[in-house]
C-alpha cells in the first residue's frame, strides 16, 4: 500500500551474496519488520498472530501424536489410551492438541468478529476476507476429521451424522455417502481416509494462510477508524511495535489455553468419547463440538432434510458475500451507531444458536432455533443491505492521527490499553 519505513540492507558478505540469489531475508524484513502497520490497532488485532501460533502448535503436536497413534478401527482407541498413559508426556501432547483445536476456534471467532465489527471485509479487502472464509471452512473440516480419530462413541456417531449430510443430495446422495465411507457404514476404511485427510488439510490451511497474509500485505491492515493510513505519521513499523504487542497477547491467550489443558482438559470434550465406538448403540444425546453448535442448531431448525443441509452450508457460505451484502460506505462500527447495535444482536443470536445446538431438538428449543435462524440470515440478507441505506453515520476523522488526537490520547503512549473501541 505504501513504501515501508526502511528497506532491508544486507550487512554481511554472505547475506549480500544470498540476497542477489534468494532475497528471502529481504522478504521477511519487508513483511515482518519494516511493514507499516496502523498505529491505532487495538488488541483485537492481535488474533491473527495468535492464530498463526496456534496453527504451528497444532501442527507440531499433531505430527508428534501421529508417531504414537494407530489409524485402525480396532486400535485407534487403544492407541489414544496408550498415548495418555505410556508415552512420555503423551497426555500433555494429546490435551494440547485436543484443546488447541478449541482454542483455534475461540481465536478465529474473535478474529472474524473483529473483522465484522470494523468492516475489514470491505473494498479493497474482499479477497482477503474470502480467503478467511475458506480458511474457516478448512478448519471446520479439519476439526471434524480430527474428532473422529480417537474412535470413541462421539467420534463414530458424529462422523455418521455429518457424513449423512451428503445423503440429502437428490438422486446421488446415497452413492456419495457410500463413497465417502468406503463401505456400507462408517468403519475402518472411513477412519483411515479421515486420518489421511486430517493430516493433509492443515498443510492446505498453511497454503491458504500464505495467500491470506499475502493479500493482507497487498491491501494493508484495516484499523479501528476504518480510515486508510494517509502518511507515515499514521503507521508504525511492524517490528517492534506490532510484534511485541502480539507477543504479549499471545502469552495472555496461552494462559487461557494452559488453564484448559492442565486444569479442565476434558471440559470442552464430551464424556461419551471415552467410550469406544460401538456401531450398535447411539449415545442418547449426541452433540457436535462446541464450535459447530450454531450451525448444528440451524440444521435442526429446518424440518426438511435437504433444506436443513442447505441452510447449514448457506449459513457459512453467506459470509463470503458479506463484502457486497454490507452496502454501507463506512467501514468501522465506531462510526455506525445503528450497525453497532445490530452487530451485538447478531453475536448474541449466534451464541444463542450455539446454546440451542447443545439442547435436544424438541419443543420450545426448536421454535427458538427457528426464530434465531431466521434472524441469522436476515442479518445478512435484510439488515445489512438496508442499514447501508438508512443509517446516519458519524463523521469520519480525516486521518488516523487525527482520530487519536481527538480522543485525547497521546500517540501510542496509551500503551497496551485498548484505545479504539470506547463506546
Amino acid at each position, binding site marked *: 500500500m505504501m513504501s515501508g519505513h526502511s528497506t532491508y540492507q544486507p550487512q554481511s558478505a554472505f547475506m549480500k551474496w544470498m540476497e542477489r540469489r534468494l532475497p528471502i531475508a529481504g522478504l521477511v524484513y519487508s513483511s515482518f519488520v519494516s511493514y507499516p502497520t496502523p498505529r491505532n490497532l487495538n488488541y483485537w488485532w492481535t488474533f491473527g498472530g495468535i492464530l498463526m501460533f496456534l496453527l504451528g502448535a497444532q501442527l*507440531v503436536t499433531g505430527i*508428534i501424536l501421529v*508417531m*504414537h497413534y494407530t489409524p485402525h478401527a480396532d486400535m485407534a482407541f487403544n492407541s489414544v489410551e*496408550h498415548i495418555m*498413559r*505410556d*508415552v*512420555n*508426556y*503423551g497426555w*500433555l*501432547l494429546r490435551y494440547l492438541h485436543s484443546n488447541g483445536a478449541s482454542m483455534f476456534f475461540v481465536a478465529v471467532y474473535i478474529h472474524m468478529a473483529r473483522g465484522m465489527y470494523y468492516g475489514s471485509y470491505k473494498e479493497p479487502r474482499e479477497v482477503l476476507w474470502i480467503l478467511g472464509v475458506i480458511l474457516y471452512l478448512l478448519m471446520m473440516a479439519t476439526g471434524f476429521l480430527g474428532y473422529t480419530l480417537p474412535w470413541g462413541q462421539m467420534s463414530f456417531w458424529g462422523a455418521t451424522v455429518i457424513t449423512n449430510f451428503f445423503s440429502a443430495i437428490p438422486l446421488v446422495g446415497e452413492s456419495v455417502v457410500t463413497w465417502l465411507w468406503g463401505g456400507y457404514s462408517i468403519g475402518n476404511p472411513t477412519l483411515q481416509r479421515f486420518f489421511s485427510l486430517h493430516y493433509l488439510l492443515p498443510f492446505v490451511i498453511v497454503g491458504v494462510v500464505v495467500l491470506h497474509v499475502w493479500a493482507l500485505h497487498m491491501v494493508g491492515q484495516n484499523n479501528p477508524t476504518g480510515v486508510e493510513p494517509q502518511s507515515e505519521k499514521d503507521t508504525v513499523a511492524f517490528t517492534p511495535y506490532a510484534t511485541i504487542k502480539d*507477543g504479549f497477547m499471545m502469552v495472555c491467550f496461552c494462559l487461557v489455553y494452559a488453564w484448559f489443558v492442565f486444569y479442565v482438559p476434558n471440559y470442552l470434550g464430551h464424556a461419551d468419547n471415552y467410550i469406544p465406538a460401538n456401531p450398535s448403540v447411539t449415545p442418547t444425546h449426541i452433540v457436535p463440538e462446541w464450535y459447530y453448535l450454531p450451525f448444528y442448531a440451524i440444521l435442526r431448525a429446518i424440518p426438511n432434510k435437504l433444506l436443513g443441509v442447505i441452510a447449514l452450508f448457506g449459513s457459512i457460505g453467506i459470509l463470503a458475500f458479506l463484502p457486497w451484502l454490507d452496502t454501507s460506505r463506512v467501514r468501522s462500527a465506531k462510526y455506525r451507531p445503528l450497525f453497532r447495535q445490530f452487530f451485538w444482536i447478531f453475536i448474541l443470536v449466534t451464541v444463542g444458536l450455539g446454546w440451542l445446538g447443545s439442547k435436544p431438538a424438541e419443543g420450545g428449543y426448536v421454535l427458538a432455533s427457528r426464530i434465531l435462524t431466521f434472524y441469522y440470515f436476515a442479518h445478512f440478507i435484510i439488515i445489512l443491505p438496508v442499514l447501508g441505506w438508512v443509517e446516519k453515520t458519524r463523521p469520519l476523522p480525516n486521518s488516523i492521527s487525527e482520530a487519536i488526537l481527538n480522543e485525547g490520547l497521546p500517540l501510542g503512549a496509551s500503551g497496551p490499553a485498548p484505545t479504539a473501541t470506547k463506546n
Partner: protein
Amino acid sequence: MTATSVEPTRRDFLYIATGTVGAVGAAAALVPLIAQMNPDASTIAAGAPVEVDLTPIAEGQVIKVFWRGAPIFINHRTKKEIEDARKVNVASLPDPQSDEKRVKSGKDQWQVLIGICTHLGCIPLAHSGEYNGYFCPCHGSVYDTSGRIRQGPAPKNLPLPPYKFLFDSKIRIGEEDAAKV
C-alpha cells in the same frame, strides 16, 4: 523522549529479561516434544528380563530368542568349537578378548550373544563363515566360534547381553549376576 543515562539501561534490562524468560520457556517447551520419542513406559516394561530353558538345546545347536527386540543367539558349543575359540592368539585379534571372558566360568559350552553385526546391524548366520562361527551376509564380516570379529568391516566382537544362570539349565537374559555387577 529525553535521553538520560539511566533510562536506556533500565529499558535494556527489561528487554533482556523478557527475552531470557521467553528463551527459557521455549527451551522448556521442547522437553516434552523431545522426550516423547524415548521408549515409552510399556516398551520399557516389555524389556523386562526373559528366562530361557537350556535343556532342549542339543550340543552343536544354536537357538535364537528375542530380548528387547534384539535376537539373542544361544549356542550350545561342541568341544571342538570351544577348542577352536581358545587356541587363537588373543593379541592378534582386531578386538582382543579371550573366549573365557565371553562365557560364564564353568559354563564354557554356553555362549550367549546379541546376534547383531557390529558393522551395520544385520543378523549374522550361525555355523558359517571361514571360522565356522558367524558370518554376516550383508557386508561379509566373519566371526569365530566365540563371536569375535576376525575378518571384514565390522569393528567389534558380537556383544554379550547381560544374563545369569539361575541354575545349570536355565538362564535369565537382561539381568547380570549380582556378584559380577
